[in-house]
C-alpha cells in the first residue's frame, strides 16, 4: 500500500514560509498532480516528500508510517528529476541499475531487472550507451527507467517534461499515463502546465504561495473552482472576468447587473451576499456563444483560427473578452458582434475571491479518469 498523507506540513527557509501548512491525502495508485505558478512551492513540497528537504513542522506519512526522519532511499519512492539527473559517467544500464548496485543485488538479478524496465520503455538497444549519446526524450525515458527499476510504491516527478519539445511532450504525456496504468503505482507529479495536470491527474492540487488553493478532480476544478485564482489558472484560454453588481441575492440564484447595464441570473447560492454587493462574473471562453440576442456586444480585435476552433478576442466597452467558437466562424477583425452565455455556465466570485457555490453539480465531476483497479489486481510482485 503506497498511500501518502501530509499533515499541516510547513517549510520555512530563513524567515520566509514557502509551504504554509499543507494537508493532503493521496490514495494508493492515485495520480496526483501539483500545479501552480512558478515559485508556488510545489517543487519544495515534492522534495519534502522525497526527503531531499526536511519539513520545518508537520508530519509526512507514507503507507501510514511517519517518515520525516527516514532517509530518501528508505521511503519506498523514486524520483524523476526535471534535468533527468542521469549519471553522465555511467552507461544507461548502469544508470538504471545504480540503486540495485548500492543495495548489493547480485549482478545477474540486476541485469534482469534492468532489462525488464528497459523492455517497458523500449530502451533495449540503448543499454550500453552513455547519457551523452542520447536524445532528450531518450534521456527522459532512462530517468523513468531508473525509477521503475526500484519498483517503488510512489513515483515522484518533478516537471519531467518541461525540457522536451512540444510534440515529444504530448507523446510522453500519453506514455506516462499508460505507464501509470501498467505499473499500478501511486504517482505524484509536479508541473506548471495545467494541460499536463488536466490530462493526467486523478486529483489535482492547486498551489499558490505555499497554500493549497483547491484539491479535486480535473473536472471539479474546471467546473467548480473554489476561488478566483483556481478559476483563472485552470482552463485554456483563461476564464473571462467581468465586474458586476448584485441586484438580487437568494439561496436559489443571484441576479447581477453587467457593466453594460443589462441584467442576468446566475445559478449560484447567493444567500451570503446582499443586493448592491460588487461581485466578479467569470465565464470560460468556450462557454461564450455568438448570439444576435446576446447580452454582450463588442468589436472583434483579433481572430485566431486553429482550424477546428477559432478564438475571438472581443473588445467590449469595459473588457477584452475571449470567445472560443468552432472553426466555421466567418467573422473578421473589426466586425461588431453580439454574444451571450448560458447562466448555468457562469461563475460568481465575492470580493474575497471565493466562489459562490453553484446550484448544479456538473455530472462529470464525480467521474474517475480510470476505474480504480485496486481491488481487481495487485501491484506487480517483484520484491
Amino acid at each position: 500500500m503506497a498511500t501518502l498523507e501530509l499533515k499541516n506540513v510547513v517549510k520555512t527557509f530563513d524567515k520566509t514560509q514557502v509551504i504554509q501548512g499543507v494537508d493532503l491525502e493521496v490514495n494508493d495508485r492515485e495520480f496526483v498532480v501539483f500545479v501552480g505558478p512558478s515559485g508556488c512551492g510545489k517543487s519544495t513540497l515534492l522534495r519534502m516528500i522525497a526527503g531531499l528537504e526536511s519539513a520545518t513542522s508537520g508530519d509526512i506519512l507514507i503507507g501510514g508510517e511517519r517518515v520525516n526522519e527516514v532517509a530518501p532511499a528508505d521511503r519506498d519512492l523514486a524520483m524523476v528529476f526535471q534535468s533527468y539527473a542521469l549519471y553522465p559517467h555511467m552507461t544507461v544500464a548502469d544508470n538504471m541499475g545504480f540503486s540495485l548496485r548500492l543495495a548489493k543485488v547480485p549482478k545477474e538479478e540486476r541485469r534482469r531487472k534492468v532489462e525488464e524496465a528497459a523492455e517497458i520503455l523500449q530502451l533495449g538497444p540503448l543499454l550500453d550507451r552513455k547519457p551523452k549519446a542520447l536524445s532528450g526524450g531518450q534521456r527522459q525515458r532512462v530517468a523513468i527507467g531508473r525509477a521503475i527499476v526500484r519498483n517503488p510504491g510512489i513515483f515522484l516527478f518533478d516537471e519531467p517534461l518541461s525540457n522536451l519539445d512540444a510534440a515529444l511532450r504530448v507523446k510522453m504525456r500519453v506514455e506516462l499515463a499508460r505507464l501509470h496504468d501498467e505499473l499500478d503505482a501511486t504517482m505524484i507529479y509536479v508541473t506548471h502546465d495545467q494541460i499536463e495536470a488536466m490530462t493526467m491527474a486523478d486529483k489535482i492540487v492547486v498551489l499558490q504561495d505555499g497554500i493549497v488553493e483547491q484539491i479535486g478532480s480535473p473536472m471539479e476544478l474546471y467546473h467548480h473552482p473554489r476561488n478566483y485564482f483556481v478559476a483563472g489558472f485552470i482552463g485554456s484560454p483563461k476564464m473571462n472576468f467581468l465586474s458586476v453588481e448584485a441586484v438580487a441575492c437568494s439561496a436559489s440564484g443571484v441576479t447581477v447587473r453587467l457593466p453594460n447595464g443589462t441584467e442576468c441570473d446566475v445559478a449560484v447560492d447567493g444567500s451570503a451576499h446582499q443586493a448592491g454587493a460588487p461581485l466578479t462574473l467569470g465565464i470560460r471562453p468556450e462557454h461564450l456563444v455568438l448570439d444576435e440576442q446576446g447580452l454582450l456586444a463588442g468589436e472583434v480585435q483579433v481572430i485566431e483560427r486553429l482550424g477546428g476552433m477559432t478564438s475571438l478576442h472581443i473588445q467590449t466597452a469595459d473588457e477584452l473578452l475571449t470567445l472560443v467558437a468552432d472553426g466555421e466562424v466567418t467573422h473578421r477583425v473589426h466586425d461588431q458582434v453580439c454574444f451571450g452565455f448560458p447562466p448555468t455556465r457562469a461563475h460568481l466570485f465575492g470580493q474575497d475571491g471565493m466562489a459562490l457555490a453553484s446550484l448544479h453539480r456538473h455530472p462529470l465531476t464525480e467521474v474517475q479518469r480510470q476505474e480504480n483497479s485496486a481491488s481487481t489486481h495487485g501491484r506487480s510482485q517483484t520484491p
Partner: protein
Amino acid sequence: MSTVQTKRPWVGVLAWLVALVIFFPIFWMLMTGFKTEADAVATPSLFFTPTLESYVEVQGRADYPKHALNSIVVSFGSTLFALLLAIPAAYSMAFLPTKRTKGTLLWMLSTKMLPPVGVLMPIYLLSRDLGLLDTRTGLIIIYTMMNLPIVVWMLYTFFKDLPRDILEAGRMDGASTFQEVTLLLMPLSLPGIASTGLLSIILSWNEAFWSLNLTASNAAPLTAYIASFSSPEGLFWAKLSAASTMAIAPILIFGWMTQKQMVRGLTFGAVK
C-alpha cells in the same frame, strides 16, 4: 562549436615573442649547464664546446637521486593528503553551505596572504619539539597545510559547477554520503581533481622557503639541493645551472605531459 577565426597574424607573432622572453632564462640556464666554469663567466656566447663536466662534478658533490626522491615523496605525499582533506571539505561547502561558508573560504585564502616568514619561528620550534626537523613527514605536513587553501578553493569551484540533481538522484537511489562522494562526485569532477592535484604537486615541488629552513640533508628536496650550490666558496654558475636543470627537468616533463589535463581542468567550468 567553432568560432569564426579572423586572421590576425600579429597576435601570433606577439605570443611567440612573449613566450621567447619568458623561456629565455631557462634556455640560458640549460646552455650554461653544458659549459665549463670558465666559459660560464666569460662573455655570453652561444658558441662553445658542450661538456658534461658540470653534471659529473655536481653528482660528485651531492646525491641527486636522494633529493629527487625526497621531492617526489614530499610533493606527491602532501598533494594526496591535501586532496584527502579537501575533497570532503569542498563537498560540504559546495553542497551543504551554511551562513559561514563564504567567510570560512575567505579566511582560508587569507592565510595565503601572510608572508610565511611571519610564522617561521613558531613552525620551526614546533617542528623541532615534535622531532620533525629534516624529515619528509614534517615537510609533507607543512606542504599540505600550505596548499590546502588553494586546493579547497579550486575543488569548491569545480564542485559548485556540478548539477546538484545528480547527487540528489544518488541519494534517492540509496547512496551514503561516502558513496555519493566516491561513486558520483569524484568521477564527475575528475578533470577538476586532477588539475588541482597537478597544481598542488607543482607548487610543492617548487617550494623553497620551508624546505630550506626545515631540512638539512636527510629530507632535503631538490630546491635545497640547488641552493646548496650557491655556497660560501663562491658561486659556480655552470654547476648551479647543471643542478637547476636537473631539478626542474622532472617537473617540466611532468607538466608538459599533463598540460592537456591541466588546461582541461582549469577551463572545466567554462566548457560544459
